[in-house]
């Protein structure tokens, strides 16, 4: 059993402090009554109050939430299917192209991905708006879900599925009664992370959006380009909280479940 040593703390703490200090500063500053970085005017909810009166911003937030919900759901279905195809079907024609398409969006610069998708939508003359952003986000998010579910599928005992099929269960039946319940935590985590991915994105949404589909970050971006603004600190702090809760929930789902299954693998 390892103990926490001074060496551990010295190597980890500065890094973690570096990662959290800017966000912590932003959150604390959002409660600063003066609104100026240089002067502390006492704690206040003033900037949060001003958000409530900002109609276009609230509307944009609603668009983003609706979008994230649609994207997470579509991406989870597509991503889970892709993961099953990759892990369970062994070799098939076009597998290399398939895996390349799954991994590439994870590292592709967002500007290129956004440009490519908007050019597709223009080429086939689809009106850009909510649904074009949803398609673009789904494409990126499904790859993330596929990678998460894939890791989970590797982990669990394939013998369970084979046993069910040997006993006469059809593949769809086996999937619904054996596979799905076992990978459900990974699917739930994938849904949450796809939700977070869509909720966080600015670049791809900027390219693929159209009239009436201004997302929260597009709106905030047009504001902060002109400089810092205390209301923006407030909305950013709210989003830090929302995404933080989502991601912690997703991490716990994956980690706890892995811990439970580990002995069954041997």
């Amino acid at each position, binding site marked *: 059993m390892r103990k926490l040593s001074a060496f551990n703390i010295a190597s980890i703490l500065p890094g973690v402090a570096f990662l959290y200090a800017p966000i912590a500063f932003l959150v604390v500053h959002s409660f600063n009554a003066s609104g100026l970085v240089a002067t502390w005017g006492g704690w206040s909810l003033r900037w949060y109050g001003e958000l409530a009166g900002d109609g276009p911003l609230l509307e944009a937030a609603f668009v983003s939430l609706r979008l994230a919900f649609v994207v997470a759901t579509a991406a989870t279905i597509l991503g889970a299917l892709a993961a099953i195809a990759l892990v369970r079907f062994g070799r098939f024609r076009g597998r290399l192209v398939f895996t390349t398409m799954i991994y590439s969006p994870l590292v592709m610069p967002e500007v290129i991905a956004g440009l490519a998708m908007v050019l597709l939508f223009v080429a086939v003359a689809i009106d850009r708006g909510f649904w074009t952003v949803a398609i673009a986000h789904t494409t990126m998010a499904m790859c993330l879900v596929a990678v998460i579910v894939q890791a989970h599928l590797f982990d669990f005992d394939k013998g369970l599925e084979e046993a069910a099929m040997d006993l006469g269960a059809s593949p769809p039946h086996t999937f619904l009664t054996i596979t799905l319940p076992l990978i459900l935590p990974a699917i739930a985590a994938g849904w949450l992370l796809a939700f977070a991915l869509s909720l966080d994105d600015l670049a791809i949404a900027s390219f693929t959006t159209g009239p009436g589909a201004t997302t929260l970050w597009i709106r905030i971006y047009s504001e902060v380009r002109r400089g810092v603004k205390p209301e923006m600190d407030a909305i950013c702090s709210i989003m830090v909280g929302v995404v933080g809760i989502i*991601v912690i929930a997703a991490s716990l789902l994956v980690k706890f479940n892995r811990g439970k299954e580990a002995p069954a693998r041997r």
Partner: protein
Amino acid sequence: MNAQPKRSFSEKLVRGVPYAWLLVFFLVPFLIVLKISLSQSVSATPPYAPLTELWACWHGFTTFLSGLSLDSYRLIAIDPLYLLAFVKSIEVAAFSTLLMLILSYPIAYGITRTPRRLQMLLIILVMLPFWTALLVRTYAWMNILQHDGPLNRLLMALHVVNEPPTWLGTDTAIYIGIVYAYLPLMVLPLYVALKTLDEALLDAAADLGCPRWKVFWQVTLPLSAPGVVVGTLLCFIPAVGEFVIPDLLGGSQAPMVGQTIWAEFFGHKDWPTAAAVAVALLCLLVTPIAIFQSHAAQTAKRN
């Protein structure tokens, strides 16, 4: 292993639906980018001259070929603005990746030396900021790096500087922003590589009288190379095309390539040039992506 099962209809569906989706919405768009990069810029909507469709028989094919134009590529080859953007992007991405590597190694190494339960929590703790919107993380630095912001006040209080330096609009601010944004993506693969390292090897080296620093230098570091490769690619590739960070923290004098694509598309409405810059950038990134792909395939095989 069982005999190869028969491909059933449901199996085809499971494979076919995501495959078709990615073909249509991921692969085809890149072919369209290539096509538009070869068309001429016109002021119209959409702002590129239509190319005759390929499938309109042989005559159509020859018209298609003669309609192709290398104007956009000629422009980005001649105008030094584009070359400078590429050079700057690679320089910024390479140097920040190196900085991240130096900063993350102690974090990743330190985490593997803690009790198992704590490791899980620490990794979640490191990854959490990564999931916060990039705009929030960049905006936080806009606050901190202001002229009368907390960083300058701290430096003044510690008497490091006598005059508050200007941060916003400088390349230093871009470096800070990129290192901050991608650091968790470097820690994670390093941690995975260091965690799976066989501890028996370290013990053996120590038992044979190898001093601790030498064990680290000759055993730990070489064995963590796969993590270094994955981390470098995960950070370097998106950093080259980064748009939000240089746009908000950097100056306007020397844009990065992501900013160039953005400006051509939204500002100048010169889509063929935007597409040509994107194609050039992709060609540049294809080598590291191919390395990443073969590495991912190897990892999958090992599992």
